[in-house]
């Protein structure tokens, strides 16, 4: 079943066209990767999906209903959870407070013992064993923080998970761990939008690949329609790269004017 569907979506900031004619589809139990360089429009796309910004053109459907989201709360209420690269959590707050932030237990008074134990259990189910959920989340490693944020989204019944560069700041080993949790979320039946600039990470888990370039779609391929080599080449710039290598190849040090 299709959870999220964007058709020819566009967004302008004043005179700047940040996004134009982008289409994307995410189904249950599928990982749809969005690849693009810096400034390709990935973060604008995320903000539209997450409800931080509204799109100006095109259609945005959640579970078949056309929406224009006014706030992140509305996205969350419709089962769209977004895990941001840098602002997934509040560093100085304990793990359990972060886990329940915005979805606290108890009408006004917090049910703290239950919140602590649920946070611990939900993390353990995802394979994250934290002895002390009272420690500030800022003391966890980057990979651990991402995993806590993913576990949080899974626990709160998200149907679609949007991940913004979850592996960007991580080493090889921690990236692998995070991707395992992404796969675990997929296996739990969630639809995942994985936004990244790393084709290798995308190809490890992705079912569909959408490429963005300067705010426009530069390609949309199912996994069966593209190899890792092709994906890497497209991501690295495709024809631009060939041209660049041509230019670089020509510059002979001897011909360079003295500086």
């Amino acid at each position, binding site marked *: 079943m299709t959870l999220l569907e964007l058709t020819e979506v566009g967004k302008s900031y004043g005179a700047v066209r940040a996004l134009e004619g982008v289409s994307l589809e995410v189904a249950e139990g599928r990982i749809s990767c969005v690849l693009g360089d810096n400034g390709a429009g990935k973060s604008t796309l995320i903000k539209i999906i997450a409800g931080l910004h509204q799109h100006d053109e095109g259609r945005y459907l959640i579970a078949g209903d056309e929406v224009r989201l006014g706030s992140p709360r509305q996205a969350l209420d419709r089962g769209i959870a977004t895990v941001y690269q840098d602002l997934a959590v509040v560093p100085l707050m304990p793990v359990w407070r972060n886990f329940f932030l915005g*979805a606290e237990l108890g009408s006004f008074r917090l049910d703290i013992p239950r919140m602590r134990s649920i946070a611990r259990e939900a993390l353990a189910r995802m394979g994250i064993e934290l002895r002390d959920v009272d420690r*500030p989340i800022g003391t966890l490693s980057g990979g651990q923080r991402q995993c806590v944020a993913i576990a949080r989204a899974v626990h709160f019944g998200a149907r679609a998970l949007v991940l913004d560069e979850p592996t960007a700041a991580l080493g090889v080993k921690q990236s692998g761990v995070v991707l395992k949790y992404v796969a675990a979320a997929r296996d739990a039946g969630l639809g995942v939008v994985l936004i990244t600039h790393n084709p290798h990470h995308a190809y490890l888990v992705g079912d569909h690949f959408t490429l963005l370039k300067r705010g426009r779609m530069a390609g949309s391929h199912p996994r069966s329609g593209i190899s890792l080599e092709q994906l890497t080449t497209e991501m690295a710039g495709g024809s631009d790269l060939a041209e660049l290598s041509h230019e670089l190849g020509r510059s002979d040090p001897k011909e360079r004017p003295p500086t």
Partner: protein
Amino acid sequence: MSAPQDVLTDTGPVRHRHHSRPELGALLAAVAVFLFFSVVAESFLRPASIGTVLYAASTIGIMAVPVALLMIGGEFDLSAGVAVTTTALTSSMISYQLTAITWVGVLVSLAVALGIGSLNGWLLARTGLPSFIVTLGTFLMLTGANLGVTKLVSGTVSTKPIGDMQGFASCHWLFASQFTVGGLTLKATVWWWLGLVVLGSWILLRTRFGNWIFAVGGDAAAARAVGVPVARTKTCLYLGVGFCAWVLGQHLLFSFDTVQSGEGVGNELIYIVAAVIGGCLITGGYGSVVGSALGALIFGMTSKGIVYAQWNPDWFKFFLGAMLLLAALLNSYVKRRAERGPGR
């Protein structure tokens, strides 16, 4: 599913508990100050002196509670000091001019106090300017309005006495009474202070709203992204400052009968000092209401202790400033540890 042990298992010893106690430094400092003046000032431990110290602490502490909550929420309120005077002036002038029972003035001034709070919160949310600038603006406006309106209405810089007006006795009982237990005279402000500390601490640590306070101060963008109403949370905190300014303003009115319109300037910084000594980070997201009470207590003990020790009271501010610097250093050290994690 299993994860590599070294990546996702919390292998370090449980030694982070102290992070949840931002007021620890203030507690040690309060004990040290208490012991120090107990030794150097022989009259410090007399019941009368303790009552005086607690009264001085309470007049700061009542405001330090909401100011600390606001700082944990990541904002300042420089108008907090003069807002106290504004509420006292409003209450007095309304009752006097309308020849109404004093409760009318009390209630109207509560509305004014909450109005100032919501104005600060609204300006902050709408303009996106730093709260330092927004409340510096309202601070100056209130300072001017306090003097200007009082001179217009009363012809002088102070209000007319309202001690003989109807309702004064019951208002005086609520805001300015005192009673003596075993030689220790406690003013009403001490009870208000205790009540506000308990309430404020409970809200901060045990409620959903308290979770939001930490979040909007710690990282407003992250809080917004998970659905926390950031602007509403901050506006509520400003309303809290307004409410407490009203409590203290009514105390000043009903214990002194008249109000000087130029009062209150500079107190806003003392409230902030108490909050910082109590463990609040200037940058928000971390702090304690109980700590703010300890900060106010240190203020009370020092300001009166220096007098009981028969020293030159000029040194009080010097001491307070040194205390503030030490506390701010300690807080930023704690923050760095909390963010980076020990041994990393």
